[in-house]
């Protein structure tokens, strides 16, 4: 049927390496998500409650992250910062790039979440004698979390998919490792086909896990 001999053996031989690289992909994506959630929460709160330069800075962050390609952001952290003598390792490039991007997108989701929780909830909890901290951590944030749970899951999937850009800045996560092996054996199609399957499985596991977690978290 095809005028081409598929050679899957080299891929199978390197499969353990690819799976190990997949763990690196997951690691960088999870780290970026954790940092992204924390920073994104901060950015959303700043944009909602503050005035002045800090708010302007937060807005810049969010708009830049959302309106430029992720690859551009990676290049910027990779080469652009080099102009200031700041040279990051490939791992750090991908981590900072992903964090920057995730924080920007999540900030917008969080802002929507906060706006969806009525002001009266906060006022009611304050008038019950809660401190601002208590009111936020016990009343507002749990409600926001419920609203932004689905977007966070989506962003997690995006983070895994986006980490594949590491290939272009010399980071040997799943895609980078695949390219490394592929260019050594010239079995490009076979290697990338297997990698595509691995990504698909990772994404499905994340979605399944998030659904299971949601059914436990949001039972009532």
């Amino acid at each position, binding site marked *: 049927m095809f005028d081409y001999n598929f050679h899957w053996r080299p891929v199978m031989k390197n499969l353990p390496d690819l799976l190990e690289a997949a763990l690196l992909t997951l690691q960088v994506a999870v780290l970026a998500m954790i940092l992204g959630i924390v920073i994104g929460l901060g950015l959303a709160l700043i944009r909602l409650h503050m005035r002045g330069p800090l708010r302007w800075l937060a807005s810049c962050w969010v708009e830049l992250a*959302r*309106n*430029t390609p992720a690859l551009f952001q990676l290049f910027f952290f990779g080469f*652009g910062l080099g*102009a200031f003598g700041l040279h990051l390792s490939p791992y750090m490039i991908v981590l900072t790039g992903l964090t920057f991007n995730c924080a920007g997108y999540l900030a917008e989701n969080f802002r929507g979440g906060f706006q969806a929780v009525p002001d009266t909830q906060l006022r009611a909890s304050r008038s019950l004698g809660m401190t601002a901290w208590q009111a936020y951590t016990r009343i507002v944030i749990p409600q926001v979390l419920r609203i932004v749970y689905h977007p966070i899951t989506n962003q997690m999937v995006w983070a895994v998919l986006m980490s594949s*850009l590491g290939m272009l800045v010399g980071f040997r996560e799943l*895609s980078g490792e695949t390219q490394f092996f592929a260019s050594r054996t010239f079995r490009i199609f076979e290697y990338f086909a297997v*990698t595509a399957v691995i990504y*698909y499985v990772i994404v499905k596991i994340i979605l399944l896990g998030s659904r299971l977690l949601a059914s436990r978290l949001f039972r009532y």
Partner: protein
Amino acid sequence: MEPTISFFSGFTPNDLLFLGEAALRTLWISVLSISIGTVLGVFFGWILFEGKWAAALTVAPVLDIFRSVPLIIQLVLFYNFAPIVGLNLDPFASGVVILTIYTAALVANVARGGIEAVGTPMRRAARSLGMSYWQDLRHVVLPIGGRAVFPAWVGVALGVMKDSALVSVLGYVELLKASQILITRTQEPFLILSIAGAFYFALSYPISRYAASLEKRWAQ
């Protein structure tokens, strides 16, 4: 006079022209794939809505693959797969094919959401006024559903425009690839990346703001 040899030369106005041409190429590949992809995507969305379980077993999983595998892997895979089946596609054609399918996969979900947003009572009303199925689709579902999901579609389109930067892995010289070429020659990463980033931002920011304001106005 002593001859000096330098491998690097500064940033000249000509380079700006080079970047401009590359920006046009980015625009061209985006517009092409977004427009074809949207038409296909709306068609798929209609199939997903009407096909019920038959579509859920056939079309949906295929579209799902394109959303669960990184675009960069899809591009490399297709570019290396095409010659196997006897197609000799240049980077541009491969890029358009994959970006189109990718757009279609994303738009399909949006379109299905749009059709669902119209609601059965409205459609029954249209049919009982004597409209045919296609009249109902054209004069009721399209305006109402289209309006409901237009902002989401703008988001998808802008996302694809930004993701078109990835076609550079195949060697297509779009904006980001052009800036990389210039960086290698001039060693001025910060300036050139800023120009490239500003172009994406200038394109994406106003459109996303416009979509957000439309969404707000239509929500009232």
